[in-house]
């Protein structure tokens, strides 16, 4: 309904020739309504578009111009553009993961993206909405989901997760923009709950065996080296991991959480282009740093140091690519701060005192659920509102 409004067309009477008055009167009616109401929103009586492009044939004498409400200028942003830019920003991390984990990671990535697109298409057909694959959001969901899975995750389960992500994470709410929770994380949460063993069976990257910090894993000569993530090692075995491998990605973990540097590169591109709100990663990671740093200062033997907390697990991936998902993050600046701080606190609490080694997924999903409330509570004061109040006092 809304899209029609913007391209109501009216034949433009030529600048030079005079048209008969009755003809003018007839043509004028819909446009008049349009302008008077400001927006003929309730019932835009758009004329059906002529089959041929009239502009091509009708020259000078009957020129077509668009009659539409202001503004007549438009920014360059568009939803697909945002989606595809985020996808491109993920590519360094994708490349890094394929470099570290090999073709197996690539298969997982491709399966997830493909399944997500198929699920999106199927939902479009069943729900009889227009096909929305081309807006890129399904591709992005599939890609993000794959980034949160271990490279050796079964193909069928990956596909299942992508379908769940699209169907239960997005389409049941009404499609793009209507979902409450990050679809990729919904898919991941389903997989975590369904296949908890497989999703925590990590493969070490190709180069890990040569490094000395992986004592347990390297002590065994098995074909597929399965090992714990640095967080798992810390939580269950009390073994820390050096920061350098964490930074470059030479560690065990899921596809996307390994190389902090590659993720940061993409994340910073998003921040510069303003496709991600800088407040979210800052407040999220900052809270984790301060909270875990305070605990570390109190008792360094019990709590890991804050840099380890930041670089391990999927925090970078989550903070830059998942928490910043526009649909599921607050729109108000204050709400965004609360959102980020809430996630940070949740993350540290889950990691340090919860049953799971990793808390990024649940911390984001938890705060996603609060976003509608945050948006409501943190309505910004509109221009001039503060003064009115202070004057009353």
């Amino acid at each position: 309904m809304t899209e029609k409004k913007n391209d109501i067309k009216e034949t433009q009477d030529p600048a030079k020739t005079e048209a008969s008055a009755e003809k003018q009167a007839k043509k004028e009616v819909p446009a008049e309504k349009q302008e008077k109401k400001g927006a003929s929103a309730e019932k835009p009586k758009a004329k059906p578009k002529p089959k041929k492009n009239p502009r091509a044939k009708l020259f000078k004498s009957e020129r077509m111009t668009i009659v539409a409400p202001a503004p007549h200028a438009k920014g360059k942003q568009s939803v697909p553009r945002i989606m595809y830019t985020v996808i491109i920003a993920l590519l360094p991390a994708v490349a890094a993961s394929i470099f570290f984990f090999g073709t197996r990671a690539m298969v997982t990535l491709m399966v997830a993206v493909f399944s997500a697109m198929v699920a999106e298409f199927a939902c479009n057909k069943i729900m009889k909405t227009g096909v929305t694959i081309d807006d890129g959001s399904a591709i992005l969901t599939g890609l993000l989901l794959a980034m949160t899975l271990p490279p050796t995750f079964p193909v069928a389960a990956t596909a299942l997760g992508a379908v769940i992500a699209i169907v239960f994470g997005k389409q049941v709410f009404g499609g793009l923009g209507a979902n409450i929770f990050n679809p990729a994380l919904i898919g991941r949460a389903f997989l975590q709950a369904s296949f908890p063993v497989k999703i925590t069976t990590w493969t070490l990257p190709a180069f890990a065996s040569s490094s000395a910090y992986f004592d347990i894993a390297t002590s065994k000569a098995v074909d597929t080296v399965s090992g714990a993530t640095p967080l798992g090692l810390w939580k269950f075995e009390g073994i820390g991991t050096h920061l350098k491998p964490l930074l470059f990605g030479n560690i065990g973990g899921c596809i996307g959480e390994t190389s902090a540097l590659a993720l940061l590169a993409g994340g910073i591109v998003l921040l510069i282009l303003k496709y991600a709100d800088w407040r979210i990663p800052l407040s999220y990671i900052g809270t984790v740093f301060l909270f875990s740093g305070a605990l570390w200062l109190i008792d360094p033997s019990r709590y890991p140091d804050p840099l380890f907390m930041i670089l391990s697990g999927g925090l970078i991936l989550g903070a830059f690519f998942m928490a910043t998902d526009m649909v599921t993050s607050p729109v108000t600046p204050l709400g965004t701060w609360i959102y980020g701080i809430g996630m940070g606190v949740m993350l540290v609490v889950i990691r340090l005192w919860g049953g799971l080694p990793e808390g990024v997924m649940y911390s984001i999903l938890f705060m996603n659920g609060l976003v509608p409330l945050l948006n409501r509570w943190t309505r910004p004061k509109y221009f001039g509102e503060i003064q009115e109040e202070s004057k009353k006092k």
Partner: protein
Amino acid sequence: MKLSTFKKGLHPEDYKYLSQDQAIETLPPPDDVYIPVQQHIGTPCEPLVKKGDRVKTGQIIADSSAYVSAPVHATISGTVKDISKYYHPLGMRETMIHIQRDGEEEWEYLEPIDDWKWTPKEKLLKTIRDAGIVGLGGATFPTHVKLAPPDDRAIDSFILNGVECEPYLTADDRLMVEEADKILLGMSIMMHILDVQKGYIGIENNKPGAIARMQKRVVELGYPFKMVPLKVKYPQGAEKMLIYSVLRRKVPCGKLPMDVGVVVNNVATAYAVAEAVTEAKPLIQRVITVTGDGVKQPKNLMARIGTPFKELFNVCGNVKDNVNRIFMGGPMMGMTQYHLESPVVKGSSGIVAVTGDLVEELTTFPCIRCGACVLACPMNLLPLRLSKFGQENMAGELEDYGVSNCIECGCCAFACPANIPLVQWIRVGKLRLREHQAKTAKEKA
């Protein structure tokens, strides 16, 4: 130097280069003019002439006895051919007086004023009213009302609005370059009427010629005005934004600039005031920018009010064949024109014709709550929520979220990546809130 500005807003590509250097060209009086009897905000005027009457240039042809109102003058000498409904640039058909030129110009001037400094303020205000001067920035609020605030409002500052923040438009810019003296004179007359000492001239930084010229004349003529160059940002020219940019004062919601002791007037208004007071000329013409990439030779024209747009385009080499959209005013708030018989009115600051390359037809996506509109809204509103509430007819929420504060500047819709017609939905919301309020008021009564 850090330029002052307001918070949020955005900067669309301004395309001022198309007509910025075109000197104002005076359009000869056209053969036919169509003069709407209603050209201001306030009580409508009634026609004072009838079909067949002979009118002189400057003769009052429509007026109202109400205070918040401004008379309308004949802009050419000739015969009244008809008083009937014609196309108005705002889209509807309005009562207009059709005058056909019949030869030489014959003027009917206002009552002359010898020395405005020694003339009673009431007289000056009457002259301004008789001249039919309204806010020429586009708001068309009668200027004499603006210049006579109630006694309980202490006005301490006067701001001359030379911002012209809408892309494309250069009419005010050229006027400042070419008629700086008259503008400054008009400004001092208005300040004299208001009895205000502090005068500010706000000009956006993309008009270096205007800033230089005005600055030079202010110094040379010894005016105590302060030049305030402003950062290029839309909607800098909106009254509330300009007051904040220049004086850091926020006009409270639902209040007027005079509530914070400020009166803002457009440069074109100041020019018209000077002409009326010193030359006894009523407002019968204005500068209008004819521009856009759909026009062969963009120009700034001094045109009689009532001139059909097609005459303007004729002078500018006519519109190109691939023109896609023609609108009066700037691209952010302007009204699309579907009929070039529509005349220039007092509020017309420009007429822009653009080809398809500039304004694409866009598909609408669902809102992804990216917050681009929130970051753009100069009034600090949440356009995405307001438009949703408008669609869903949620009057209570509309009120809570301050829908009536929206100035409809179009920043949100400009920024929206999903191409949602936010401004239109917000207007629907305003309408629905008003309906709801009327209903509840009725129920209470």
